C-alpha cells in the first residue's frame, strides 16, 4: 500500500499575531507543522507499522520546509516531496488541490491522509476538493482508520448525529481530526537518520505543470485584507467568600446580562 500524507507549514497559533496595513506582520512569527497534519503523519506511520505501507509526505509552499519534513522523517515517513514555488503565495484551496492532484497522479497512491484543516486558514477544504477532482472516495473528520484489505478500509467519522462507521473503497482521501491519535515525539535515532535522508524539492515546472494549469490564473477567491479580530474584553472578576461572590454573580447574570 502506498500512502500520501500532506503537511503544511503554518504560523504558530500560540504566539501573538500583529496586523499592520491590512497584512500580518511577518517579523517575529514562528512556523510549525499544522497540528492536524501531524495527526495525519502519525496515522500514516501507524498504518505502515501495523499493516506495511510505503509512506510519502508532500508539502506545498515557498521557503524552507526542510526542518518540518525532517521531523516527519524522524516520525517514520519514508519519502518527502516539497513543492516549492513562489507563484503559490496567493493560492486558494482549489489551486492547492490541483497541485496535490498532480503529485497523486505521479505516484499511484492508494490512500491520501490529510489534516482536516490548516491552523492558519481554518478552511478545511483542500482534501475534500482533491478527492472530488480525482473522482475518488472521501471521508472527513475521521477519528479511526482500520485496513480491511488491499482495496478497502473502515473509518470512523465524527458526524452531527454521532460516530459514523464508513467502509471506504480505495483509493480514497481521508481527512483526520486531532482526536485520532497523539503524535509521537521522534526518538534520537530517528532524528539522526532523518538528517541523512534526501528531500525531493521541485517547482511547478518540475512537477510537470504550471501555475495557470493548476488554476492560479483564475483564482476563485483571494484574501484582500487582514484585520485583527475584535478582542473580547474580560469583565468583572470576583475573589473572596464563595457564597457571597457566587450570589453576586448570579445577581449580575439576572439583572445586568439578563440571561435568566
Amino acid at each position, binding site marked *: 500500500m502506498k500512502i500520501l500524507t500532506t503537511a503544511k507549514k503554518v504560523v504558530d497559533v500560540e504566539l501573538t499575531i500583529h496586523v499592520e496595513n491590512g497584512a500580518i506582520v511577518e517579523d517575529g512569527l514562528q512556523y510549525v507543522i499544522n497540528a492536524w497534519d501531524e495527526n495525519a503523519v502519525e496515522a500514516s506511520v501507524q498504518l505502515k507499522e501495523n499493516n506495511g505501507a510505503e509512506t510519502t509526505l508532500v508539502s506545498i509552499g515557498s521557503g524552507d520546509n526542510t526542518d518540518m519534513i525532517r521531523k516527519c522523517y524522524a516520525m517514520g515517513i519514508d519519502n518527502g516531496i516539497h513543492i516549492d514555488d513562489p507563484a503559490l503565495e496567493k493560492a486558494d484551496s*482549489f489551486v492547492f488541490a490541483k497541485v496535490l492532484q498532480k503529485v497523486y497522479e505521479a505516484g499511484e497512491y492508494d490512500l491520501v491522509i490529510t489534516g482536516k484543516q490548516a491552523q492558519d486558514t481554518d478552511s478545511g477544504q483542500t482534501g475534500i476538493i482533491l478527492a472530488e477532482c480525482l473522482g475518488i472516495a472521501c471521508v472527513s473528520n475521521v477519528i479511526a482508520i482500520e485496513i480491511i484489505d488491499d482495496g478497502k478500509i473502515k473509518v470512523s467519522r465524527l458526524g452531527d448525529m454521532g460516530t459514523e462507521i464508513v467502509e471506504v473503497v480505495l483509493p480514497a482521501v481521508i481527512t483526520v481530526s486531532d482526536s485520532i491519535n497523539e503524535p509521537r515525539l521522534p526518538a534520537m535515532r530517528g532524528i539522526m537518520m532523518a538528517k541523512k535522508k534526501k528531500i525531493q524539492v521541485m517547482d511547478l515546472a518540475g512537477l510537470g505543470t504550471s501555475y495557470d494549469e493548476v488554476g492560479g490564473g483564475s483564482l476563485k477567491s483571494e484574501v484582500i485584507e487582514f484585520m485583527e479580530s475584535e478582542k473580547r474584553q474580560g469583565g468583572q472578576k470576583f475573589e473572596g467568600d464563595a457564597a457571597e461572590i457566587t450570589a453576586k454573580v448570579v445577581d449580575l447574570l439576572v439583572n445586568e446580562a439578563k440571561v435568566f
Partner: protein
Amino acid sequence: MAKVLVIADIKQGELKGSTAELLSKAKAIGAETAVVAIGSNIESLANDLANAGSDTQYIADDASLELFSAGPYASCVVDAANQFEANLIWFGFSEGGKAMAPRVATQLEAACATEITDIVLDGDQIEVMRPAIANKVTQKVKINTKRLVAVIRAGAFEADEGISGTENVVKLTAPAADLKAVIKELVSDASGEIDLADADIVISVGRGTKDQAGIDLVKELANDLAAGFGSSRAMVDGGFMAHNKQVGQTGKIVAPTLYMAIGISGAIQHLAGMNGSKTILAVNKDPEAPIFNVADYGIVGDLFEVVPILREEINKIRS
C-alpha cells in the same frame, strides 16, 4: 438580484434554528430565497421550511437519505442550486455542511468559503469576512466567481422573528448511493441530550473538574438549566468526555446566550470555539487563568464549592 439557497439543518426530523437565521440574512440583503431539505420522512416539514423564510422548498425525501452521506447529500444540493439558479449557497455550521460545501463548490465550479461571519454584496461583487488563525485575525476575502458556496459560522446571523415565506414545494429525485463510501453504522452518542449547537445555555467542563465525580456535579447544573454540556480538549483526551462534546477550534463552535466555563483554563483553541457567546461566566481557582480575559463574569474559587452554590442560587431565581 441575489438568489440564496439555504441548506436546511434537520436533526431527528426537526428543523433547527440556523435555517431561519440564514434565511433572515438572505431576506435582509434583498435576495430571493429557497431552501433544500434532505432526509427521510421530512415532507411534513414543508410548512416549517416556508415559515423559516423560504419561498421555494426543494425537498429530497427518500429512505436512502436517512443517514448522512456527503456524496448523495451534496448531489441534492447541486441539483437544487442548478434548478433555482442560486448564486449564493449557504450551509449552517455543522460537520455535514463542512463535508458537503467543498464538494458542492467543486461540482458547481464555484468559490468556497467556510466559517463566514459576514457577507457583503456590491452589485455582482461578493466579499466575505471570516476568522482565521484560531480567530486571532479576520480575513476579508474577495470572491472572483459569480457563485459562492459558504459555510456560515455559528451565531453569525440572527433570526428575524417577523420573517415569513411561501410554500412552493419542488420534489428532488434521490441520487444514487455512494458505493465508494458506505455508512455501515451510526453510533449515536447523544440520544436525548441537548444539542450543543442549538442550546441557549452551554456549560463546559475542563481539567479542574478532575474526574467523573466533578463532571457529575456540573452535569446536575446543566440538567437543571436544560443546557448543552460541553468539554475542553483535556477532558476528551482524558477519556472523561465524548469527542463530540469538545468545544474549540477543532471541535464544536458554539455561540449561546450564556456560556459557563467550569474549571477550564482557556487555551487559545478552546477560546476560538466559544468567544462568540453573548455572555461568558468562568469559574476557576487560578486568578491568572486566561479564561478570565474573555469572561464577562469571573468567579475565582474552587468549583467543587462554587458549583453547588451556583446551582442553588440560580434555582432560587428561576423558581
